[in-house]
């Protein structure tokens, strides 16, 4: 009995050391327990039913609120595993959002005459194409233009946001009701659609990362680009597709968000998204130097950051301090994941 207990302990310690997913998972579990405790203290214990109702409600709104960042972080995971970085996600987000707002404007937009579903379809397809194209632009600069990803996306980040703000100075828009239901459609009295989109995309990205040549090439390039090229892989094409895929996912996040909120503040929308997405990826155990990481880790990472924000909210910490906690989580996570190499 004692022996099996000891073995289990040794195994757990090995897992903790060698498997980044295990340690992030444990960290998430601990945070969820603390969050549940904090939530329980805020609610009165009338009945278990009302407590559970409360708990569930809190989780639904937490997941829904973070679906956008969660989806962007999926793309960012591929970018970082490939050895790159994408600072332009927040700007692509606001640009695609602005595009949707203009195209779908019920009162006087270019598609106002079409009305209803065809206009929405055109708007949606246009939005994901635009997102993909902007990403492809980044990819072109990085792969064919041989620019460091940091510089290329720093440039496109500035350009996109500034141009969008210039054109969208005093725009008031009204979105069609059918469009809003993309995110607001209720299932069992709850707006679950954003969570479902996130879950489906995460599952798809997980499969891509493990079972497709593209996904495995991304890992190979991040670990050793030369060897990958010398193995007959068109490295440039793969890199372009990584950034295009990220642009595509950012566009989906922008669709969900505009549909959910119904408006967009061009001055601040999407600002800081790049840092939030990078934080989720890093907390999830993906290596900043490329080659190592996972989609599941990123989902965990997004949740850890989200649960922490929720927790700070529940225990009434001043919002000005929340960024400090986020910073501490990032540093703490990387310290935990650091492998002992003495």
């Amino acid at each position, binding site marked *: 009995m004692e022996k099996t207990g000891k073995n289990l302990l040794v195994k757990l310690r090995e897992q903790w050391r060698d498997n980044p997913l295990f340690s992030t998972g444990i960290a998430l579990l601990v945070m969820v327990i603390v969050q549940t405790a904090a939530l329980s203290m805020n609610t009165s214990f009338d009945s278990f039913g009302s407590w559970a109702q409360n708990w569930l409600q809190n989780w639904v709104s937490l997941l829904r609120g973070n679906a956008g960042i969660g989806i962007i972080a999926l793309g960012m995971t591929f970018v970082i595993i490939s050895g790159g970085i994408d600072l332009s996600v927040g700007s692509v987000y606001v640009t695609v959002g602005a595009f949707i707002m203009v195209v779908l404007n019920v009162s006087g937009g270019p598609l106002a005459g079409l009305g209803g579903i065809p206009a929405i379809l055109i708007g949606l397809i246009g939005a994901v194409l635009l997102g993909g194209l902007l990403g492809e632009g980044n990819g072109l600069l990085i792969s064919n233009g041989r620019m460091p990803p940091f510089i290329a996306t720093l440039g496109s980040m500035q350009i996109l946001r500034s141009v969008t703000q210039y054109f969208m100075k005093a725009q008031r828009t009204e979105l069609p009701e059918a469009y809003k239901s993309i995110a607001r459609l209720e299932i069992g009295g709850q707006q679950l659609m954003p969570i479902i989109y996130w879950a489906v995309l995460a599952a798809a990205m997980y499969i891509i990362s493990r079972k*497709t*040549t593209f996904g495995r090439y991304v890992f*190979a390039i991040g670990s050793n680009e030369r*060897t990958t090229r*010398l*193995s*007959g*892989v068109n490295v440039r094409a793969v890199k372009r597709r990584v950034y295009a895929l990220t642009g595509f996912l950012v566009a989906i996040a922008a669709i969900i968000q505009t549909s959910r909120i119904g408006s967009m503040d061009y001055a601040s929308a999407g600002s800081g998204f790049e840092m939030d997405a990078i934080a989720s990826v890093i907390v999830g155990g993906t290596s900043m130097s490329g080659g190592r990481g996972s989609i599941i880790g990123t989902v965990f990472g997004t949740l850890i950051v989200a649960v922490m924000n929720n927790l700070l909210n529940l225990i009434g910490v001043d919002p000005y301090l929340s960024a400090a906690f986020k910073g501490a989580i990032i540093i703490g996570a990387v310290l935990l994941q650091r492998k002992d190499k003495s």
Partner: protein
Amino acid sequence: MTLEMRGIYKSFGANDVLRDISFSVGPGEICALLGENGAGKSTLMNILGGVLPADRGTVLLDGRETVFRNPAESLSAGIAFIHQELNLVNDLSIYENMFIGRELKTRAGFLDGREMCARCSEVFRRMDVDLDPRAMVRELDASYKQIVEIARALLMEASIIIMDEPTTSLTDPEIDRVFEMMRNLKSQGVAMVFISHKLREVMAVCDRYTVLRDGSMVADGKVSETDVDELAKHMVGHEVRTQSLRKERELGEEVLRAEGLSRERSFEDVSFCVRAGEVLGFTGLLGDGRSELFQSVFGSGGKYQGQLYLEGRPVAVHDTKQAVELGIGYVPRDRKENGIIKDMDILENGSIVTWPRHVRSGLISWKQVREAFRKQAENLRIKMGSEEDLIGSLSGGNQQKVVLAKWLNAGPKVLIFDNPTQGVDVGAKEDIYDTVLELAAGGVAVIVLSSEAQEIIRLCDRAIVMYHGRVQGELPAGEMTEQEIMRLATGA
């Protein structure tokens, strides 16, 4: 200073890596430490270097018992370790590299460049080399980098220098330069330990030898009383072939032909052709352009002029993906840089080229990939634990076999080997030679690039010698000798 190690034992868990090893080296002596990868050479030297403690046994310096608890203690006792991968910073000058971590300062606390340069020059004078301490390390060729490492050891007043495969990345004349240096130091009473796989070099420069196999000492003695065949036999435990491996074969159709290939500053007007079942060798000295030439043929070397024909049809190769689709394969030099992907497992490293062929409805069928890899792994006698282990868990020779496996599964028409046995032990070398010859026998056109004349002579049906990017001469099997190859390679 005389070093003696007596009855050294070391084990990692249940695995005995060293059993009762004794080893010694005295002033003015060069002693070879021989053995295949995994024989225990590195462990023994790590004990001497203070990196690992011994389980049992004693280390004596000038007859006094000594224990090194860390590398610094070993260094201050006068033992310097020069690793296989050079530890120099390319973007610093020679003197900065030599004094790194021990910089001399002026009284005001600034770096004293003049004094450091003076001390470097003094060491260079003693070594009889002409180097400017202020030159950047980046500008030096590999042999001078090695010499700077040795100079650094002397600067620290090391009286015992351990060199781990110092000649791996050097060309023949560079090797001669390093050897001359070693003989010079020997005459000044420095003791040296020379770790190498290259037995000819051991014969050329060493006085005594010790051979380890599987953690035991299997032989030691004077170099003058042995020969290459005997040493090789000790290392692998059975007879080793040194004669030509070539067999007369019926050659097939012409597979690859190049006409007037040129790329600025790399190679000029190179023409050759290779037939199915033929092993064509390319050799020369550093800067001969053969590596650049075949990188271009494989589509990874940038634009070139001239025309390539594959099975008689003109082709232009723009990138590596296209090269693979055309049926050209390339086993690169510098395995660590170009051959392996360190964050991926053995299976993925051994199959990346053929992934697209195993895609079923968009997804890779790992089951198929695994089956195909297993066949090659068995063929190549790859020694591994699980296919899911990282590639880094394998020895150098087995890593190289994994790199080979990914190309064998691709089934190329032409397979180019660039320095295929670099940093590979004797046993694995023979396995790789067998694979090359099997491929040729199976109708593949094989091109072997090598700086080792012996390798070319043993393997190839025909050899092309290059000099400064041009074809200097072509030798049929009967006329290949080390002297003739060297004559052409030096431009004579």
